[in-house]
């Protein structure tokens, strides 16, 4: 049934915007073509076969037809709808964050298979781990790695000497760690604990399964969160909006009751 004008892709739905009466422009992250925008006609109508499928953060198999401007999604089959993620406020919010990061860091037309797999795994792990924050940190670190921003964490980025235990620094601008001798304050840098360095080094080279077994204190996990946040904001030159929402959920709501997460 495939003609030269139609093609298939494995896709994760990143976001969608309504256009016209009931159509949607859907941003997909595909295995085959990287980021891709396409039109889902009539997707807002509950009767639509497409509607429920091309919804973030679903993993689907989509059939597309070449269009004059944007390509058109003609069929879609959901491979994983991540129902557990959608049923939990923290998890669905984490998935928003992950999708926003992918959207912010990628451009259309540059396929990146490891990145697609990382994204799919992150959504699955979110569901399996009930929203463990390690999923987010691991995702952030590896997303940047697949895009060429792997931070240098074993040697000082300036003098190249191995980092010693004790106080070291992390410089988003230099893309890695500085020894105390090289941190003269000319780079925007922050102290990084030796434990944080060790954890990040381990994460860089291990799969998620290994990483998820490392238990961390809440102090260390918030150090890592802030560090990654800073690095990401530096690289994007702007804030990731869902990050603020996650912060809000973690610290309670400030309205009515202060029920935090977990």
């Amino acid at each position, binding site marked *: 049934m495939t003609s030269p004008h139609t093609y298939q892709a494995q896709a994760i739905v990143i*976001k969608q915007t309504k256009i*016209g*009466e*009931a159509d949607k422009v859907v941003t997909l992250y595909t295995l085959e073509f990287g980021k891709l925008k396409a039109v889902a006609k009539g*997707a*807002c*109508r*509950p*009767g*639509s076969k*497409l*509607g*429920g*499928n*091309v*919804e*973030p*953060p679903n993993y689907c198999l989509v059939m597309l037809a070449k269009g004059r401007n944007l390509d058109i999604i003609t069929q879609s089959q959901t491979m994983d*709808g991540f129902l557990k993620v*959608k*049923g*939990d*406020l923290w998890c*669905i*919010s984490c998935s*928003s*964050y992950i*999708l*926003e990061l992918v*959207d912010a860091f990628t451009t259309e037309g540059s396929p990146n298979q490891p990145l697609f797999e990382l994204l799919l795994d992150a959504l699955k792990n979110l569901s399996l781990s009930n929203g463990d924050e390690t999923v987010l940190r691991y995702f952030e670190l590896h997303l940047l790695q697949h895009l060429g921003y792997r931070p240098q964490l074993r040697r000082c980025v300036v003098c190249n000497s191995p980092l010693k235990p004790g106080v070291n620094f992390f410089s988003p601008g230099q893309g890695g760690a500085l020894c105390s001798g090289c941190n003269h304050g000319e780079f925007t840098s922050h102290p990084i604990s030796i434990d944080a360095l060790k954890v990040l080094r381990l994460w860089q080279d291990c799969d998620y399964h290994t990483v998820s077994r490392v238990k961390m204190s809440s102090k260390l996990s918030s150090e890592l969160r802030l560090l990654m946040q800073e690095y990401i904001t530096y690289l994007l030159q702007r804030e990731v*909006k*869902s990050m*603020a*929402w*996650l912060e*809000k959920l973690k610290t309670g*709501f400030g*309205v*009515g*009751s202060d*029920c935090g997460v977990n």
Partner: protein
Amino acid sequence: MSFFAEPIANLIQEFSKLPGIGPKSAQRLVYYLLRNSNEEAKALAEAILELKEKIRLCSICFNITDCDPCVICQDKERDHSKICVVEKPSDVLPLERTGKYQGMYHVLHGAINPSQGIVPEQLRINELLSRLQDGSVSEVILATNPNMEGETTALYLYRILEPLGIHITRLARGLPFGGELEYADDVTLAQALESRREF
């Protein structure tokens, strides 16, 4: 330099701003009005002005209305102990059409979308909370859209309303995920309303 006389060009430009109206359709509308009687053109102009002058938000439910409180909020026959929470004013109409619901509404004017920076403070959520203060409301029906933003909103509302001890229900999944309430057919919507479930 415009190809049209100025009044024509102006109106074409205004019509083109409307949703679904391209320059071609705008032109057709303008020529239609030119051919039409003065009275009809006046009636249209007045209707537009009246819309903006008389329509406002109900101070209780935040639905659009020409009187405050709106007809639904004023109606003594209706069940004031139930509030159905929807995203936008256009969601009220299809629910009313089902004829199955006799309670009140609350229009949020949007849904939580963290990546677009849309957070609860921008929605009419505090106003909903204050309606629940006096204990006269026993059930809140969450009728946000069955998509990511709607789900996030419903989960958030559940999280903040649950401690208040109010019975919270959610429209049943007759509605497929990803759809929008506004476009649901009456039967599907009536079923979804009748089989609303515990959150």
